[in-house]
């Protein structure tokens, strides 16, 4: 199932209820971002259709995280427009707190709330942001934890969970808000190799259930298999984008080729 038909939203992801996902799109136009005098994003254009999975790849410092963080405005763009799930993220009049309810974010270092159990991690924003009753919030949280395979560990605190388990709780926490879009910033980079697979499996199921996903990753096998579109960034620009069969297996640009050969054959020449 590695290539040919990247469209999903098929049945066959029984755990992640496809009917609950209302995927939305993202349109980024001529996005610029500087830190002081250093321009980190130099005019990015990117469209992501509802239910599409986009993998962002590129060397360290190329601006992948910055791009992702501009989408939910953890960083403020300097110029350009970002349309997210019907909101204009770059419009100063947009209520970003409302917009962010629809945009789930998963961080490299999980950022679970250490003073709360896995269940409470998933419930707190439902209660404090969406105003759900505790009972309902906990029911939804338990459901999301079941989805990511951690229903049994709902009462554990983050420091009682492995890295892979913590990251799956972080995914469940984002899903509990019923987002229209999910952003992942190197979700498996901080994990022990043996727990990476569990996280990728959840992400694959989520993709199959039809979630719009933008994933910064160095997992080329995952990108090849799951992505509808792979975007290669270098030096703050999009160098090349297209289906994985083109960008990963048959890259056109020298920079993409060099990067891929380094990632796919670390240590080799």
């Amino acid at each position, binding site marked *: 199932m590695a290539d040919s038909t990247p469209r999903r939203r098929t049945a066959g992801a029984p755990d992640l209820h496809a009917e609950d996902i209302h995927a939305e799109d993202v349109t980024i136009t001529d996005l610029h971002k500087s830190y002081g005098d250093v321009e980190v994003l130099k005019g990015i254009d990117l469209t992501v259709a509802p239910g599409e999975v986009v993998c962002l790849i590129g060397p360290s410092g190329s601006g992948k995280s910055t791009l992702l963080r501009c989408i939910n405005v953890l960083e403020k763009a300097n110029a350009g427009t970002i349309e997210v799930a019907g909101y204009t993220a770059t419009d100063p009049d947009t209520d970003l*707190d409302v917009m962010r309810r629809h945009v789930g974010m998963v961080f490299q270092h999980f950022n679970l709330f250490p*003073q709360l159990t896995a269940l409470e991690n998933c419930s*707190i*924003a439902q209660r404090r*942001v*969406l105003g759900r009753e505790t009972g309902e919030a906990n029911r939804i949280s338990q459901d999301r934890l079941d989805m990511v395979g951690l229903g049994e560990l709902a009462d554990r605190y983050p420091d009682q969970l492995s890295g892979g388990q913590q990251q799956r709780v972080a995914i469940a926490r984002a899903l509990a808000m019923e987002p229209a879009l999910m952003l992942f910033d190197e979700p498996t980079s901080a994990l022990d190799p043996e727990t990476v697979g569990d996280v990728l499996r959840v992400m694959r199921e989520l993709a199959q259930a039809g979630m719009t996903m933008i994933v910064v990753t160095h997992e080329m096998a995952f990108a090849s298999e799951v992505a509808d579109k792979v975007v290669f960034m270098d030096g703050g620009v999009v160098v090349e984008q297209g289906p994985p069969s083109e960008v990963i297996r048959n890259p056109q640009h020298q920079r993409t080729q060099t990067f891929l050969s380094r990632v796919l054959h670390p240590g080799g020449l």
Partner: protein
Amino acid sequence: MALNMRQRARLSRGIQYAIFAIIVIVLIVVVDWKTFVDAFLNPKVIAEQFPGVLTIALKNTIIYTALGFVLALAMGIVLALMKISSVGPYRWIATGYIEFFRGVPALIVFIAFGLGIPTAFGFSLNTYLTVMLSLGIVESAYIAETLRAGLQAVPRGQYEAARSLGMTHTRAMISIIIPQAFRIILPPLTNEIIMMTKDSSLIFLVGLSAKQYELALFGQNGITEPSAGLTPLVVSGACYLVITLPLGWLARRFEARTAKMRK
């Protein structure tokens, strides 16, 4: 000599024990124990200290400390918020205040409120107000720094995760950041209460009525009695320990718990 490491360590420890034993023996022989007990631990004088040392002195020390702490905490919160504000002048004022009051002796502030203001303006503040202001103003500088450090010790990712879930700035602070900062702050805050307990004795400057004596002054008053020796001071010192030792133990407990939480 051909001693290996372990033998050398054992020899060294043996010598240290021997020195200690000699010192103890010399003390037992040389010291006049009857004079010593009369001077420091005279049972009759100890008995005379009660119940006043508890019902007046210890009680007042606790009241003065509590008054100072309430003001110090309230001002400390405001100062900490000013210190992390994005508005420059707030930051400068808070920094100036904190550096000033951490840099001058608490005694100076007590003199200012207890003696300086009455002399300069011709009215004197009530004792409770004086101790509350002096102690509160000095300690708020320390508490502000503790609070600021605690808030900033919570990793930035916690705030970002909270905001990513749609929480407002205020909600993220209340639900996520402050509860974590609180655990970090608790041990140093407990230590500051210990400091305040001791510093509350500086109120003696103002000249207190007998009903207002706190522990140090109560002890001082006790030793004016010609035959009392130093025993009254020992008793009031012991009363400080009744407060400070459990607090110190608590602070270490909090610290251990926080350390465990953060692995």
